[in-house]
């Protein structure tokens, strides 16, 4: 047993992504970028995709990371990007859906168009991306899908998040459904539920209210985008092979506060 274990449980081998190809949407900023850079640091080839305005200013990337513009709500754009990567690399192994929009508006303030936009980016965007990527994963004999959801999808955190929370709750169940549908094809699907993680996309004038605005509720402190990197690599790598259909909180204990 011990010799067998010594050969098979090298920590480095369990998290190494050499030879893998990853697509990260919402990859220019915050948790998307942190996820992409972590995948690259574990030796994956990574494509970071985001809005043209954001992706254009992204600099200083490692050589195996490519940045490209993408509107995740456009089926045509998603298909074009995915087929381009697949032709170049022979498929895609890892998909991280990190594209996000949130208007932070009370129900009486948010317009129907804004509601639609939130669902389009946060839910339909993941649908379109997964729909395009999964066939490429099947070509490679399996794959890993990691959705970046929110703790607000299971427990209200801030006021003005009704559209956003609904889109992310939909994303959670979409993830579970994918886990069921593609388990036999060795594709796993999980969602990360980040808690209070401070990203640069939050405007400095943003003054949230609600349970999550109370510092006393953040018993483990506030997080930074890199705090999800370890879980991304677990779910994307050999060590996470047996985990699927899960929504995993990375929330500094908010849900037990």
């Amino acid at each position, binding site marked *: 047993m011990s010799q067998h*274990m010594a050969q098979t*449980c090298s920590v480095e081998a369990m*998290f190494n992504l050499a030879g893998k190809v990853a697509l990260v949407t919402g990859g220019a900023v915050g948790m998307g970028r942190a996820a992409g850079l*972590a995948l690259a640091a574990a030796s994956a080839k990574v494509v970071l995709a985001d809005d043209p305005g954001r992706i254009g200013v992204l600099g200083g990337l490692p050589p195996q990371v490519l940045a490209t513009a993408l509107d995740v709500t456009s089926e045509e754009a998603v298909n074009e990007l995915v087929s381009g990567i697949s032709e170049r690399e022979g498929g895609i192994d890892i998909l991280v859906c990190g594209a996000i929009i949130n208007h932070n508006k009370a129900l009486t303030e948010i317009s129907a168009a804004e509601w639609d936009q939130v669902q389009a980016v946060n839910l339909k965007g993941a649908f379109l991306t997964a729909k395009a990527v999964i066939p490429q994963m099947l070509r490679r004999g399996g794959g890993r899908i990691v959705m970046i959801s929110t703790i607000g999808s299971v427990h209200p955190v801030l006021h003005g998040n009704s559209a956003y929370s609904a889109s992310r709750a939909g994303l959670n169940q979409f993830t579970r459904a994918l886990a069921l549908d593609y388990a036999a094809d060795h594709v796993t699907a999980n969602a990360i539920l980040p808690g209070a993680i401070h990203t640069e996309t939050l405007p400095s004038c943003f003054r949230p209210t609600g349970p999550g605005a109370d510092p006393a509720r953040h018993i483990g402190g506030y997080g930074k985008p890199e705090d999800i990197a370890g879980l991304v690599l677990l779910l994307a790598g050999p060590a996470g092979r*047996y985990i*699927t*259909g899960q929504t*995993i909180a990375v929330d500094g*204990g908010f849900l037990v506060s």
Partner: protein
Amino acid sequence: MSITQDVINSLYTIPGKVAIVTGGGSGIGEATATLMAQAGARVVVADLVEAEAQRVADAIVNADGEAIAVKVDISEEPEVQAMAARAVEGFGGIDILVNNAAYRPKADFFEMSVAEWDKMHAVNTRGTFLCSREVIKVMRRQGKARGGAIVNVSTIGTALPTIVNNVHYDSSKGGVNAITKSTASEFAAEGIRINAVMPGGVDSAGARRMRADPTMNLPMRGPITMPGRMLLGVATPLQLASAILFLASPAASFMTGHIMAVDGGYLVG
């Protein structure tokens, strides 16, 4: 060292950390003790069966790791106190506790004695409480900057029943889930993170013992025995160990109070 090794090491290795793994003499515990030693930890392999604990500790030492074996019945307060004291004496402190030891015979719901019900809860629930308490005492003394991590091993049966004749086991592990959340909440401010894993079907020595022991020869019947319900098949102990290492490592530094299914998709199957 390559960037890849650097990043992986900084996230998932635990060099010099002192880790107690209860039930470390076989199955998920053995895989966890061995993997943690590979990740740089000094491991206290604690088990009811001393020879098994010794075997695993010897294998770690033979592979140039650091480990000591301790015999412990986790349901007995003085033995748990002695285990914590032995870790401190041997390695100078405690950073990680894996509450993996468990009692798990099946029992018919109607014929199960009160003594059997109580023994199940004495080992799995009281044992988790006692080990957590004695280790958290040490972690608090060491200070918030050093902190600590506890990983409890629960069962997927607390979220979705697996087999019949298992009510007492699922109940005891439901208590483990509650202990996970309560202790996570209570000790977060002291830098102690507490999470749990919920295994589904695992091809472990304990599971094989359960199938082979004629006194436990009750039917394996229930949702998890239905063909195809474990979407990714039966887990190896190492697949659980890797999730346990993750939760104990810096990679999970912003996670506490989470109960993570490592079930090959049983909950969505």
